[in-house]
């Protein structure tokens, strides 16, 4: 019987033997695969819709940062991949995109969205799916406590801190009677609420608040509402019609007397400042998250970042001077990718089972020094608020160039808050 088996193996024993041999052959390979398997990051991208100009540059910045990360050995020795998912800058599609990236593409975590209405709509879905959601969104919705434990903003300062930091400079240097023009949704409302508050704290006054629907295409009709005694006109506009907004403002005031103008570069991101019709902005001031035009005192890290993304000294693509970047914002994508790297390495990331450990690792961040990981400058992370605080820049448009005139300190932007995400559950 035994002999027979050896000489004439049955089909069953052959199968069993084959299976054993196969297992023996693949087992070490599998073990090895798990350690060098790529880390997959989902990027929620405004490739189309009203955020498309930002989307184009956010994608370019993400790919540049990815190249730097991978060339330096990836994250904990593992290569990194980014999967881009277009959300059409639309809240509903944003939530669907989070779902798709998490469930179908099976990414490890998601980052990248900017527009506040998209972030506010998508963040609850990320929390339900228990996937880290790192936003580059500026709005005050993360730090306000409105979102959840899974949503973090380690790459860019929120609007409340930005305007708190700059209000003293505006009231001391430009004027105390301010009229605000802002888009009529969450992001604009953050500006309205916190800048008004910050100006009042400086002894100034916001004399008019003009809200403009985000889909508006013509603006002249709003300008008569600007009170005559306005000393400073504060504008922050986004979307496809921003150029029209600035042109019509120029036509409205023309060569006549006009207030000082303080704008957020958001109004002119991806727009060539030398565009005809924008001459009237000459001499006006801008907030910039990072100076679009290369300043004489730029750090080594900043020039490294500028070269890596492929941006010239004027803030345009090196291959096409007409393709102007969103330089004042897109550093947040770069810095968020490096924050992900830091967080993953801190929690010895193995796979999706470590998602909670990753959030806890980011919550252990505090000082974030300047360097190639943070070309915009040093920052401080507040774990309770899930929010980072950095320097802000004020530039003046002189001879068609944006020249830095003021840099706020990290302390300037700190505001009191009793929000504590650490006390909320996962």
């Amino acid at each position, binding site marked *: 019987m035994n002999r027979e088996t050896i000489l004439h193996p049955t089909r069953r024993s052959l199968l069993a033997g084959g299976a054993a041999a196969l297992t023996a052959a693949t087992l070490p390979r599998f073990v090895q695969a798990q350690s060098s398997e790529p880390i997959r990051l989902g990027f929620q991208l405004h490739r189309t819709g009203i955020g*498309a100009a930002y989307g184009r540059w956010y994608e370019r910045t993400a790919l540049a940062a990815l190249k730097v990360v991978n060339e330096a050995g990836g994250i904990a020795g593992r290569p990194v991949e980014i999967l881009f998912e277009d959300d059409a800058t639309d809240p509903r599609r944003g939530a669907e995109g989070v779902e798709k990236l998490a469930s179908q593409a099976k990414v490890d975590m998601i980052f990248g969205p900017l527009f506040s209405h998209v972030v506010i709509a998508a963040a609850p879905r990320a929390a339900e799916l228990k996937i880290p959601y790192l936003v580059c969104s500026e709005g005050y919705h993360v730090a306000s406590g409105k979102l959840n434990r899974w949503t973090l903003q380690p790459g860019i300062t929120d609007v409340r801190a930005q305007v708190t930091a700059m209000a003293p400079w505006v009231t001391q240097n430009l004027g105390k009677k301010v009229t605000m023009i802002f888009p009529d949704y969450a992001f604009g409302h953050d500006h309205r609420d916190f800048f008004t508050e910050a100006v009042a704290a400086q002894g100034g006054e916001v004399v008019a608040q003009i809200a403009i629907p985000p889909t508006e*295409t013509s603006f002249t009709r709003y300008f*008569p509402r600007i009170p005559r005694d306005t000393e400073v006109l504060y504008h922050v506009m986004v979307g*496809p019609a921003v150029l*029209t907004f600035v042109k019509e403002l120029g036509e409205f005031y*023309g060569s006549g007397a006009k207030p000082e103008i303080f704008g957020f570069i958001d109004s002119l991101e991806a727009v060539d400042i030398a565009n005809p019709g924008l001459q009237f902005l000459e001499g006006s001031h801008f907030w910039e998250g990072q100076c679009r035009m290369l300043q004489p005192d730029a750090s080594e890290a900043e020039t490294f970042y500028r070269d890596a993304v492929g941006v010239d000294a004027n803030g345009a693509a090196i291959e096409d001077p007409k393709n102007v970047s969103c330089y004042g914002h897109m550093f947040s994508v770069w810095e968020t990718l490096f924050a992900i790297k830091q967080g993953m390495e801190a929690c010895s990331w193995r796979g999706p089972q470590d998602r909670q450990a990753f959030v806890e690792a980011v919550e252990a961040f505090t000082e974030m020094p300047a360097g190639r990981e943070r070309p915009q400058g040093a920052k401080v992370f507040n774990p309770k608020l899930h929010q980072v605080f950095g320097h802000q820049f004020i530039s003046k448009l002189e001879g068609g160039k944006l020249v830095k005139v003021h840099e706020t300190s990290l302390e300037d932007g700190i505001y009191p808050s009793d929000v504590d995400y650490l006390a909320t559950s996962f």
Partner: protein
Amino acid sequence: MDFGPFLLLAVMEGLVGAAVLALTASGLSLVFGVLRVVNVAHGEFFMLGAVAAWFVSQWVPGPPALAFAVALVACPLLVAGLAALADRLVLKRLAYEPEATIIATIGLLYILQQAALTLYGPEARPVPPPFEARLQLPWFGWSGYKLFVIGAAGAVLAGLWLLLARSRIGLVMRATQIDRETATAFGIDVDRVYAGTFALGAALAAIAAVLIVPIQQAHYLMGGDPLLLSFIVVVIGGLGSLRGTLVAALLIGVSDGVISTFFEPTLAKILATLLVALVLVFRPQGLFGARA
């Protein structure tokens, strides 16, 4: 700002809106009047006109005025050609069934929109105005180009009226509108009239877009608002009535300008929509429409 100049600005802004709206809505109204087709893709023909104007501004060298003149002729022709093609390939095969054509034009809307997204991209791009001029009034400044838009739209509408009321083409179109079968019996090539009218309607939207694009920038999603407002105008004015369309466009355009200047743009939209509801309840044929 004082009340007088404030009102002046509001009316001037309203007139620009009304001028462009009158052109777009008359195209929609014409198509409905003659073909009995509710063209949901009308706003996309508007968008195509603007996008085509951007391409022309990139390809035609020389001063912006030259590129603008080329765009004003070439873009409507291009859009009209596309519309005639859509008529032959789609609407005719559906025998102009009202329900089927609504669905078909919805499909056309998405095809055109996505084609623009693919070929033109998601950015809003500025088109230089043919001339840079500012009108400096004692209280405020205004774009001289906007005055030109009002004038040009008026001229095109006058031309349209002449075409419909005084030319043989207009006679044939009106005959087809009133009684299609009798028109066929009199030897009118109804198919050609239909294709021609659909093309003319689209061309009017394209002209409106070429005029407005130096103010608004070309964007692949820009067709939504003109479509909605055109429907409002056409319903208030009476479907198929050109005179009604013009009066309603002036009413909606100027009131939109005034209300959104003094109050909120949202309020202007609410009131316009309310007016549509009232018209539908109390005068379903519209202000100037014939009783069905």
